[in-house]
């Protein structure tokens, strides 16, 4: 057992042995390390002004991802390389190609969001050698700018992509060998326990160790990506002590094909699961691209999204429609249940003290079935759904509905199946008249709330209309705005 967290901050090795469980990376950087280039804009992971890069060894390879420092806990950063904007230019002060492109394209005005943009753009620059306009948009979904209107920033990102990262122009690339060695030396497989007057932080050695710690401390807060728990701290000032960090556990990050579907470890991030899920069912990939911003997708986990029991939750509706099954674990004991059964009512899940979501099994849609997911939000990207509907419809040879699984988020106190709607469809011809009947039945399934995201009337009407969309799409008619994959961006040199 170790009683300290060890990490690299820019080029310095740091050992932290006394900190409260709720110490965020942002507060630590700004208040204790005086690295004030990283800003607080919202303290909820939405604006991206606090974006930094976090490098981790994955199978021995060093990879950097953007994260929101405002909702990232220091306790979760053992054996990582935290890189702030101060470390992105060369030691002699020469700007990085991303920074230079931002200057050349007039990409900053007030400058407050700029360090966060530079960090996100640096991650894109390192990880995608030839991004197009849509790739840049996706990489910047988690960064808000109120001054520029984004055009010059996107141009800067595209211009930077024309310069390849090299030892000569990028400090991270130049130092990749030494950083890998330094991080490897920090990995010792030990459990970490941090004692502090405000509570304990645990970093388990592996999943079995996690099971043991959680069984001993069932009151503890499990922290995976912290994209939800982070806000308990920054917004509600709730105590999360004692807390157990689980985002580093390789066993929880596995993504494996298993008879007819995919088993996803509860600690796998949205980013890590995207490709495999898109392959399993293309609509999942499209939905994943609209969850949070890149930073949230790098941090947030599918398991966390399931376990927090939000009535909206972006992932549960499609996973329920597909018939996903969760595996819960307490100590050495495991049980499984269909995802829809996990949600009992608003704020209440079928999870006992000390029990945690270990994995979720996602079946592939049956051959020939229609599977669709429609997320509707006030703003297209980086917004919580007003409603999210998922449909798995199987037709028999006579164009009759043989099976229907329909689930919605945002329509009830939990992600919930539309039982009456399904019932009205099953056995009927897949026709306009049965769709209309199903739309009527939906009113018996849901009595949605009115709130700032949408009114009850809108939620119901849009949900009903999604059946129309589904019907039209199964007959090949264009029934929604789709990206043509091309976004015209004026020449970066212009």
């Amino acid at each position, binding site marked *: 057992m170790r009683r300290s967290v060890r990490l690299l901050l820019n080029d310095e090795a740091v050992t932290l042995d006394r900190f409260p469980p709720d110490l965020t990376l942002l507060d630590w950087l700004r208040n204790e390390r005086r690295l004030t280039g990283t800003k607080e804009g919202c303290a909820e992971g939405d604006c991206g002004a606090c974006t930094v890069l976090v490098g981790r060894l994955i199978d021995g390879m060093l990879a950097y991802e953007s994260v929101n420092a405002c909702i990232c806990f220091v306790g979760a950063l053992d054996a990582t390389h935290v890189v702030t904007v101060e470390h992105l230019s060369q030691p002699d002060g020469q700007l990085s190609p991303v920074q230079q492109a931002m200057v050349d394209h007039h990409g900053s005005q007030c400058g407050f969001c700029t360090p966060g943009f530079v960090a996100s753009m640096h991650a894109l620059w390192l990880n995608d050698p030839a991004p197009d306009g849509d790739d840049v948009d996706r990489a910047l979904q988690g960064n808000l700018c*109120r001054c520029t209107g984004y055009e010059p920033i996107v141009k800067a990102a595209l211009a930077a992509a024309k310069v390849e990262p090299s030892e000569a122009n990028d400090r991270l690339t130049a130092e990749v060998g030494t950083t890998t060695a330094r991080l490897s030396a920090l990995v010792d497989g030990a459990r970490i326990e941090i004692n502090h007057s405000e509570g304990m932080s645990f970093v388990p050695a592996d999943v079995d160790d996690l099971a043991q710690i959680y069984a001993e401390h069932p009151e503890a807060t499990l922290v995976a990506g912290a994209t939800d728990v982070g806000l308990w701290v920054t917004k509600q000032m709730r105590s999360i002590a004692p807390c157990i960090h689980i985002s580093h556990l390789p066993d929880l990050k596995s993504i494996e094909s298993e008879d007819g579907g995919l088993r996803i470890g509860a600690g796998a991030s949205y980013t890590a699961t995207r490709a495999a899920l898109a392959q399993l069912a293309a609509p999942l990939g499209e939905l994943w691209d609209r969850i949070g911003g890149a930073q949230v997708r790098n941090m947030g986990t599918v398991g966390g999204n399931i376990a927090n029991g939000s009535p909206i939750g972006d992932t549960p509706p499609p996973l329920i429609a597909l018939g996903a099954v969760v595996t819960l674990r307490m100590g050495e004991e495991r049980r499984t249940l269909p995802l829809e059964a996990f949600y009992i009512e608003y704020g209440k899940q079928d999870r006992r003290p000390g029990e945690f979501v270990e994995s979720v099994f996602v079946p592939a849609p049956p051959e020939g079935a229609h599977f669709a997911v429609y997320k509707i939000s006030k703003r297209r990207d980086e917004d919580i759904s007003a409603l999210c509907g998922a449909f798995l419809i199987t037709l028999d040879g006579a164009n009759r509905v043989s099976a229907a699984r329909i689930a919605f988020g945002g329509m009830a106190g939990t992600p919930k199946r539309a039982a009456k709607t399904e019932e009205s469809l099953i056995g009927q011809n897949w026709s306009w008249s049965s769709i209309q009947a199903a739309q009527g039945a939906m009113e018996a399934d849901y009595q949605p709330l009115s709130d700032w995201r949408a009114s009850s009337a809108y939620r119901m009407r849009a949900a009903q209309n999604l059946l129309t969309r589904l019907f039209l799409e199964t007959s090949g008619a264009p029934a929604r705005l789709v990206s043509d994959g091309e976004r015209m961006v004026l020449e970066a040199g212009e």
Partner: protein
Amino acid sequence: MNKSFQPDSTAEKIIGGAHTNREHDSASKHVTGAAIYIDDMPEAAGTLHGYLGLSARAHARITALELSRVRDAPGVVAVLTADDVPGVNDISPAGLNDEPILASGEVKFYGQPVFAVIAKTRNAARRAAQLADISYEDLPFATDVKAAMEAGHPDVCPPLTLQRGDVEAGLEKAPRRLSGEMHIGGQDHFYLEGQIAMAVPGEDDEITVWSSTQHPSEIQHMVGHALGVPSNAVTVQVRRMGGGFGGKETQANQFACLAAIAAKRTGFPVKIRPDRDDDMTITGKRHDFHVAYDVGYDDDGRIGAVDATFSARCGYSSDLSGPVTDRALFHADNCYFYEDVRLRSRPLMTHTVSNTAFRGFGGPQGLLGAERIIEEIAYQLGRDPLDIRKANFYGEAGRNVTPYHQTVEDNIIERIISELEESSDYQARRKAIIAFNKNSPVIRKGIALTPVKFGISFTATWYNQAGALVHVYRDGSIHLNHGGTEMGQGLNTKVAQALAEEFQVDFATIKITATSTGKVPNTSATAASSGTDLNAMAAADAANQIKDRLIDFAAEKYSVAKDMVVFEPNRVRIGNQTFTFAEFIEQAYIGRVQLSAAGFYKTPEIHWDRQTGRGQPFYYFAYGAAVSEVSIDTLTGEYRVDRVDVLHDVGRSLNPAIDKGQIEGAFIQGMGWLTTEELWWDDKGRLRTHAPSTYKIPLASDRPRIFNVKLAEWSENRKRAIRRSKAVGEPPFMLPVSVLEALSMAVASIGDYRVCPRLDAPATPERVLMAVERLKAGG
């Protein structure tokens, strides 16, 4: 001068002069994180932190304010209430004594600050602020315009009427008539750097305040007022803001005053920075409006008479609601001549945060009312709204006087429109869209071309003045200070470019320094798009004073005529001798020439009489137009902006790159106001959209898929504004009215373009779908 910087004294042109694409002076600091905002400044030992305790009622009498648990919380040093304000507990910028720093006795909106906690850490102050026990006796409240009207709420300040001609007779005689109403939502500024102030106590009654403010002189005045000390005891410093947009014109007062009071009281520096939720709850926003219009027009769509009332959600106090609602009326004509007109404002009191300045300052809401009227007429007549616009533009004598009796003398809107109509291929695209819609059951498209005319000058005429302080040091380096504040708009860059041009030195010769009330006194807010117009002229005046002295000195010393002393790039030619600028300055110093000057500027010609509603409030107008094309999904109301073309007038641009950045940024910000940015209050009067998780400003992926922005390069300010440029901050904010109207056209396709969809703002997917459903049901 910096040894590494050696200006080229043989150059043909200076580097970074006027009309060049100089980058923002802080660009390199922005991208490296080296630019210092107030929260980044090193804190002096013992610095304390403040946090505010807020009311949990929309309208109530406070029957008990029990703060002992707050006082006893760990780390707490002091707790301040209204009783602890040593001077006057008021920060009303209108001088109406209706805006307490801390509420006492009665709270008038949900989230109104009631007390402040000062503690050793920000976290301790924030936690302690949750521990108050406040008892309330609830009073009736109304949070929106209609409810306030029904409840008979008073105006927060005197309303305004603009009239010309006889509106009743005009409406009577018109061949056609229509009336309607429109709701226009407000908008949060969402500056990325929230409100913040840090106060450091000095000796005697002195205090220095760093504030993220657009109006240092007002902070100085308010801090003096709150502390009960004269202005000469208060120094306010602003290096830069992380965005302002009007949200830091008056809204910084509260935080600065509280930091100053706490600093004087404790003897320690005090910093106050609310978190994003509190910032959005405590500070005012763009005014929501309700517009009621009655219009007379003819079969050609030509408007005869307009009678309209603009009622605004002002919040609980006046703040700037008077001039904001005035400006709504000043722009309720946009580019159109109304023969008989009456425009009335109703600045209504509501139990919400007091609304304030926001880019455009009421103008966008006024303009939007005008454009709704155009749409109504177009759909009534089954015509393209662009035709109706063209039929109503201001024209020659007889059709060129505004409702406030100013003659429009510099009108270029017809040229802007015709060039844009051509370059955007508007007519062909509109035809193609109508054809597309015929065959597309779910996806519908819309296109709209809308114009902007925006009056430049503060309508409070006395604000149209500015000062600058310029020092030339012995080594030839120049120190520039002026009364404007930098919030990202590139003001410092543009003023320095203008100054570089006057002295004919490279931009890098000039050091731009933080705005300080100790250097330039009695400044106006950096607002009303006027920053460059005013401050660059003041800086040029200072330069010319120094140059006059230098010319006199050189002419005498070298016995040449004054016109033989010429400032050339980084050098001065005197007769047939040439010296580098630095050499010449050294000679002048030895010759005991005063190398410092305070410059001053006041805008000429303008005047305004609010009582009679007559005058010439604006020095000139800025113009622009945009074409937007959108697609909507008629099943869900979701939409996408497919293409935008902009042609905008900035006169002879001082810095085309910066001006283009202002236009693009204003467009997206205005588009957010009209589309996804929705403020939502619940039935307790509580604002529930108070963070980016719930309040949705545009993202990179929301920008138009094709976005062509061009400056009208042929335009030149007909007035003697700085180097014939025009102001750029606010006018382009109204270009995205074309997005709203294009959405409206896509909806109108459901009713074969014969019914005006009356799409209110913000046109969220929900409003679009509900409008579609309305039209499907037959209008």
